[in-house]
């Protein structure tokens, strides 16, 4: 049971869809990564809100692939993108603020990666 519609996107369509949502006046609620089993990569859910309504974009990203940051569209996205880089090893290109792996000062590298 999910709270809001989930729309599947690809790395190529992500920015366009995010831009459409931004232009409709929605805010970024959160970005959540989930490691897929057997090291198959990550599933990333971008959640957006309009008042109390929520909607999501979902991207499945193989390990070796990079995704372009949406921080040029939603300013605060860099916080979530640095987090999923440090914890899951998701490679995010063109973040407005890139902590380069120092967002979390943790001993293990990408501890949430499977």
């Amino acid at each position: 049971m999910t709270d809001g519609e989930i729309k599947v996107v690809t790395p190529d369509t992500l920015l366009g869809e995010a831009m459409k949502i931004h232009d409709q006046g929605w805010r970024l609620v959160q970005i959540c990564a989930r490691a897929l089993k057997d090291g198959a990569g990550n599933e990333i859910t971008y959640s957006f809100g309009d008042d109390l309504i929520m909607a999501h974009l979902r991207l499945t990203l193989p390990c070796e692939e990079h995704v372009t940051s949406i921080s040029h569209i939603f300013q605060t996205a860099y916080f979530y993108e640095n987090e999923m880089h440090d914890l899951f090893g998701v490679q995010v290109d063109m973040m407005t603020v890139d902590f380069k792996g120092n967002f979390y000062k943790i001993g293990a590298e990408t501890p949430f990666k499977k």
Partner: protein
Amino acid sequence: MSTRSIVPFGPQHPVLPEPIHLDLVIEDEKIVEAIPSIGFVHRGLESLVNKREFTEYVYVAERICGICSFLHGASYCDAVERVMQIELPGRAKYLRTIWAEMSRIHSHLLWLGLLADAFGFESLFMQAWRIREKVLDMLEASTGGRCIFSVNCVGGVLKDMDASMLKGFVQELDKMEIQVRAMEKTFLSDATVNNRLRGVGILTKQQAHELGATGPFMRASGINRDTRKLGYYAYGDLEFEPIISNDCDSYARCEVRIREIYQSFDLIRQAVAKIPDGDIAVPVKGNPDGESFVRVEQPRGEAVYYLKADGTKFIDRFRVRTPTFANIPAMLETLKGCDYADVPIMVLTIDPCISCTER
């Protein structure tokens, strides 16, 4: 042109009980930019969900934070319950609402005390915390714990409150309200307090929206949004409207939180008047399989929980987007252009919880 300097703020600082570091780029006494650094005590609690059975993880969820402990536990249970399509008994929904509002009262009073301490008003700090003790006593009487009270379980709650206890709590809240109103005069009318808060740390409505601010921090910038209006637990049965202010400054954040304390008193009174009789939990069979999003209004703002289960007794992914994590980018914006001396107050006005952020 003045010389720019970088002044480190934190991770150890008198106004910060928990570690966050800011590199403050200053020009004379004005902040030009603030660069955050978090992650000093990241605990990886989310990943423990793969190693604890889903019924046991509630105790881990409650330890994400000591202040929002109840709501973290309840929201985790709510997320599992949604996946398993478990309908909670009415009484359990009301009990969760009452404990959630008690948590809000004690969190806001804690914050008011910390704010008073930050601007050097020691006696006001002690007044706020003295009143807070009363609600902690109520939590202890009803659950056995003062901060982490472990009353949630998947399918309901573990403890009940009888009619005489609820009646006694309402009487105690009436007395507390008188004390809070007396204290409110100092917070909202005293000249020294006003001087420290008025016009400090402006966050416009547009900025609050674009930067994803949440909770009282956002409502003090004029955005009328409160996640409790989704109607989870018993909130759908209760009458209330979000508390907002259009002043957009630190004073407004203080005012909103004080008025939210009164709102919580009222919500508890309504809940006590309407609480139905009956069971407090339903039996849970099987393992969860599916995903859910849960949003709740914690004292510090909207928290978002994501849970993905795959039919085993271990949850595949549990993610918590805490209010402080969402509020830090907006706080950084409010720091730009402010006086160096106001930084501690402005950091405090988001009511930062690094324990939640470092879940």
